[in-house]
């Protein structure tokens, strides 16, 4: 009798706890697809044929999912000017402190940019390809990154998510393939 009650109690308690984590898990993949990256500001000034810019992005999680953090922010961009692509791609890797992407929380990433080459800065269009490495509950088994494309002429804009990559690591020997939306 006591044992039956003990079993029932453990079952009810563990089911209650599991229901919360399962409900959270059910929003995980939706959250990966809905992480919103915005180009908050792109202030640049030209000095002759050189340019300096301060670029700020924000990343936020519009879903109710808890458990994603940003590990690494890797912006890569080219600049189109005067109707042609005149710059070489610039790759940066900004190591952030692990920033939790809890619901409603916004993570801000800012970085400066100095052009080291001469070019025309008329009718400029910045084209960013940004890869964000995420930390999730799957860290021990898989690494997850998401890639965004942002185009801006100097004003704030919303970035478009172009891929989510999930790759097996460590003990997972299932082929190491990737998944995308």
């Amino acid at each position: 009798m006591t044992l039956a009650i003990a079993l029932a109690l453990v079952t009810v308690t563990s089911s209650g706890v599991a229901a919360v984590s399962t409900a959270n898990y059910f929003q995980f993949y939706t959250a990966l697809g809905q992480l919103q990256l915005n180009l908050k500001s792109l202030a640049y000034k030209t000095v002759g044929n050189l340019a300096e810019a301060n670029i700020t992005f924000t990343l936020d999680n519009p879903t109710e999912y808890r458990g994603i953090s940003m590990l690494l922010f890797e912006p890569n961009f080219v600049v189109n000017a005067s109707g042609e692509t005149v710059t070489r791609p610039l790759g940066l890797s900004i190591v952030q402190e692990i920033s939790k992407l809890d619901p409603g929380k916004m993570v801000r990433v800012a970085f400066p940019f100095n052009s080291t080459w001469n070019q025309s800065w008329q009718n400029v269009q910045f084209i960013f390809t940004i890869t964000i490495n995420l930390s999730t509950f799957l860290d021990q088994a898989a690494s997850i990154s998401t890639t965004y494309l942002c185009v801006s002429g100097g004003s704030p804009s919303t970035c478009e998510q172009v891929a989510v990559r999930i790759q097996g690591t460590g003990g997972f020997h299932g082929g190491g393939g990737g998944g995308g939306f």
Partner: protein
Amino acid sequence: MEKVVGRIAKNEKLGEILLVPLWGGSIAAVLFNSLFQNPYPTFLHYLIIFSLCLIAGALMQDIAKALLGFFTAMAVAIAILIGVSSVPAFSALSPEGGTFIESLMIVIIFQSTFPIPFITYLVASMIGALLGDRYLEGSFNLDWTRS
């Protein structure tokens, strides 16, 4: 409700049949808690499942029944785990992404369950059945409406 409980209490077979999905469901619930947060179980998760197997084995009161119950409960638990962990991936990701996550989850679930934990739980169920056979009198009684 009282009628249902009374019927279960009188029917030993029905009680044992109901015990197996309860056993499997509770193992799955504990593993869900670890899978969706870590994803590998911690010592505490293993300890809870060990205790569950000990209790469920004792309630079976018979080695053969406990063995059959354990295998069925583990099959139920693993089926629930694979099913529930794969469903959201297929609904939110591309078919390739869904298949990849399903494979990943299957690997994690099997790594969390086999072989040492599985053998340990099996031993716990057997010990529970031996203790239940020796120290629990009569068929297991779920009737808490009568003392």
